[in-house]
């Protein structure tokens, strides 16, 4: 039962362009969403989060958009840089936050 889905296993983007990573979820009780970045042989690193009371959160080059009615969130990276090449996981939790459900990840390659 996959409650959080990332339907694109990979994405390639030219340096300087926008990267858009998508994530869908099924559980309407999810209230908090996070994006993690993971390099090979390392643990996931927190990137940005958003709670359900917002529809947008921005941190530098990273912006997360949440569409609750569509149960969809996206991560925008602009401009994309080669160092952004990594696997990006979205994760979701209910308001208690005791357990997070992860998507399968999207491997982003930023081409110089």
């Amino acid at each position: 039962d996959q409650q959080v889905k990332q339907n694109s296993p990979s994405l390639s983007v030219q340096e300087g362009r926008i990267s858009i990573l998508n994530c869908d979820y099924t559980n309407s009780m999810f209230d908090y969403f996070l994006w993690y970045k993971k390099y090979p042989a390392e643990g996931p690193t927190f990137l940005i989060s958003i709670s359900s009371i917002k529809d947008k959160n921005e941190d530098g080059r990273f912006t997360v958009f949440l569409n609750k009615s569509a149960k969809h969130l996206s991560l925008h990276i602009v401009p994309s840089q080669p160092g952004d090449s990594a696997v990006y996981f979205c994760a979701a939790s209910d308001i208690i936050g005791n357990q997070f459900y992860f998507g399968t990840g999207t491997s982003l390659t930023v081409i110089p």
Partner: protein
Amino acid sequence: EPEVTQTPSHQVTQMGQEVILRCVPISNHLYFYWYRQILGQKVEFLVSFYNNEISEKSEIFDDQFSVERPDGSNFTLKIRSTKLEDSAMYFCASSGERGVAYEQYFGPGTRLTVT
């Protein structure tokens, strides 16, 4: 910057053997978690731990698994009798608070290979 550490980085064990994966969470954190990622698959929640007891566990976390905080710094995951399908990366995480406002910090992972 404080970080979560995990040892060993790679553990090879034979099927049926017991393994203990060790984690040192960030020192002032109170909530601790174990996740695993089977090669090519998603990161899966195993268990959360607070105040010396399990807060929540997933279906994966069956009787073969146990967690412990034996002292003030370590947080361990024990697999009593390993199976081939336990081969995965195991990530430990910690957070200062439970709940949506507090992010979990992940360790680098331990790769467990069961032969």
